[in-house]
């Protein structure tokens, strides 16, 4: 019976700033409170107006603290943005001759070796996700600690981004007198809660399509093989509608949510939608099919660009469990079918799995990333008095051994 921990995830998103307070006990995760506020000052997943964004974060934290009856002191911070890139890399460490067994320290050395890989000067590493270990060339090693060998190698998936752009949300949090426990790529966080271990094993593509960005993660055989961020999201759909129909942005957003459909041919010929008069906006009538076409073109293009990026590597081909679509945009009617058409694979519209607590929170795809942050926190925090750090992280990202990683 482990002790329970309170973990907090903070997502400074483009549509909303969201704080999730959860209780972690052993493998269980229970959502206690969610503090949310419409975001202002964030575009395409990144802060463009610092003061505004900071106020939103302050507010969201306050709401979460009230609802959860907790005092928040540190958070797991989600980051994203078009500048994030990734690649696979093999790190290496040689075990000194006088020693026969591989130790914990060696694993850390291998990882350190991987982190020394050359990055563009402006970039910094966000994650080095362990994929596989090799001992003296032997493949398929799960946990090399204790094994005999002299050469230890490991494949890593290295995720990196522009340092200054990652600093912004961190600074925001620090200025509110909070500690940043860790910085996590939002897409990775989503993947952690949206996939169960058999999905990871079979291989899967997770797409978290939010307002600002579309984050994607590909798992193959239980490990992360490919990831990235395309800075196109729901805001682009809204913007397209606003410009196409010449209506104010806010109205366009509502129209998208209330009437939008990603598929074509679903309306009767000449079917129209009546937009009522409002202050500052004279009423109009628009064709439903026109609205849907604007949406369709944008979403289809986004999926196609995504597919193009993914096809630069072979991993999508091995995503046996198919595509898992989450994030606010996944709520748009028809988007699942559209994604199926583009990717030619089964698409599951999904949300955070295997969590308990406030149902309305975890059953909503908009919160996948934020909930994923606490999931990540659960694994990381588990190293205090639990299995080793490396082991936990490895298990978490690989979803192995029957645990709910």
């Amino acid at each position, binding site marked *: 019976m482990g002790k329970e921990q309170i973990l907090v995830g903070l997502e400074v998103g483009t549509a909303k700033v969201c704080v999730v307070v959860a209780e972690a006990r052993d493998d269980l995760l229970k959502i206690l409170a969610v503090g949310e506020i419409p975001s202002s000052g964030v575009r395409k997943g990144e802060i463009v107006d610092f003061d505004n964004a900071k106020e939103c974060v302050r507010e969201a934290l306050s709401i979460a603290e009230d609802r959860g009856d907790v005092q928040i002191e540190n958070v797991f911070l989600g980051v994203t943005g078009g500048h994030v890139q990734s690649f696979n890399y093999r790190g290496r460490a040689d075990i000194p001759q006088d020693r026969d067994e591989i130790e914990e320290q060696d694993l850390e050395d291998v990882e350190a070796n991987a982190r020394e890989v050359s990055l563009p000067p402006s970039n910094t590493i966000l994650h080095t996700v362990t994929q596989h270990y090799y001992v003296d060339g032997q493949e398929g090693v799960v946990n090399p600690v204790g094994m005999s060998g002299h050469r230890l190698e490991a494949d890593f998936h290295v995720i990196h981004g522009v340092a200054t752009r990652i600093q912004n949300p961190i600074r925001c949090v620090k200025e509110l007198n909070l500690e940043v426990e860790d910085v996590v790529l939002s897409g990775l966080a989503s993947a952690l809660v949206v996939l169960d271990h058999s999905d990871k094993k079979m291989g899967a593509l997770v797409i978290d399509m939010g307002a600002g960005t579309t984050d994607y993660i590909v798992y193959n055989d239980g490990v992360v093989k490919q990831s990235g961020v395309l800075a196109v999201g729901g805001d682009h759909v809204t913007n397209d509608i606003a410009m196409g129909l010449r209506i104010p942005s806010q109205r366009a957003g509502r129209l998208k949510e209330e009437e939008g459909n990603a598929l074509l041919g679903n309306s009767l010929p000449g079917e129209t939608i009546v937009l009522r008069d409002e202050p500052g906006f004279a009423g109009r009538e628009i064709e439903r099919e026109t609205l849907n076409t604007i949406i369709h*073109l944008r979403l289809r*293009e986004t999926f196609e660009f995504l597919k193009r990026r993914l096809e630069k590597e072979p991993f999508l081909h091995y995503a046996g469990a198919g595509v898992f679509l989450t994030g606010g945009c996944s709520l748009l009617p028809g988007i699942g079918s559209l994604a199926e058409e583009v990717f030619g694979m089964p698409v599951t519209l999904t949300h955070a799995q295997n969590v308990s607590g406030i149902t309305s929170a975890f059953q909503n795809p908009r919160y996948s990333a934020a909930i994923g942050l606490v999931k990540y926190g659960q694994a990381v925090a588990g190293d205090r008095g639990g299995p080793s750090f490396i082991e936990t992280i490895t298990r978490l990202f690989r979803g192995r051994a029957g645990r709910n990683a």
Partner: protein
Amino acid sequence: MISLEPETLARIDRMEPVEFRVIGVGGAGANVLDRAVLDGFAKERLAVVNTDVQSLSASVALDKLQIGREVTRGLGAGGDPDLGEEAAIESEAELSKAVEGVPLVFVVAGLGGGTGSGAAPLIARKAREAGALTVALVTLPFSFEGRRRADQAEAALERLEACCHSVVCFENDRMGETVSARAGVHEAFAATDRLISEAIRAIAGIVGRPGLIRIGLDELLAALRHRGARCLFGFGESGGDNRVHDAFAEALRSPLLDRGRMLADASAVVVSLSGGPDLRLAEIEGAMGEFGRHINDRTQLLLGLGVDPAQAGRVSVAILSSVGAPVAAPVAAPERAPAPAPVAAAPSPPRRKRPPAIAREPLAPPPAPSPEPEPEEPVLPEAIGAEAGSDESPAPAPLAAALSLDPAPLAPVPPAPRVPPPAKSSEKAAPARQEEMQFEPISRGRFEKSEPTLEGGQDLDVPTFLRRNFRIR
């Protein structure tokens, strides 16, 4: 994303730097050479050719050749290319001597007037006959200089294209973009001259420098060569922390690249990177990755990499390319009347009227850039996932066209391909492209404060329906 194999880097090319000569023809040509000397070109490589003795004597080049002594009596060709040509014919022997014995010859001239337009083509032909790789760099007159000069320039351009391996054009109209609005006229001209001299250096460098990664000559020429094409050139140089990135940024700012937008249309882009021994692989990879966003996935990217001890601490980048209707590209024109669509290349675009004067015997026209690397219309940035060959239905309904993302190239048009200089016969199915409406005036709306999302040469912040030419009624 370019990945540079360590083995590739380890291979050092032992070729000698190539010998080249620059011939400045006419007044404008002489100005460029004077500028080049300031920029450190060895004077021995430069020669000025002119009918006007006054201009010749003022030049700093060592080698000066007066042509057409009898024809013009030292007074210049008076803006008449026929006179310029006669002068060149009169001095043919001397011109031949001036261009022989070197493997690479650059002919630099300002087109539109007399000597440059008249003599440059002949000089280029001589160089070609002497077996040299011949590259012409020319300026085209301002629009305000009038129809006649423009016509003369075009005629000369056509003749040059027939006998040069490659022609790089600099439009004077764009000169304003090379300097700030408040700069003096002198500065503006000087900036253009500098650009040309950098282009020469870059091309000579690509061709001859012992490089770690060499670009094949034929690849370079194929990249630069398109009939009736606009050549693009950008140059940047920098030191400091983020030097490769900064050098690229400067190069992309070149007006000749239209801030990088024109690259999206190019079928091949040549990037020549040069740095000191301290140049790091990571720097290059990072910058090339970013640069990759400015070009189409189908664009062939040729990277030349050289290390020059003299450049320690600094990095320079030259970007060369061309866009334009390729020779005989078999493309079915999507019939969207209002939409600016590059139509199948007619044998000759409107401005290429063959001037009657060409009775002279041919140089066999240089080998057309045969099978372009990609079979379809290279300048047409095709829709995502569009396959080669666009023999699909020119769908009548705009929507169907907008949706046919699959073979029919649904031109997601990037905002700024420019119209070739004054379209004369601008009627109907003109093979030249119509001017695109610039998107600058339209606000970026929600994306005002953030940097554009560039992917595959397109700005994704621009609504998809606009880029796909879907019309909203």
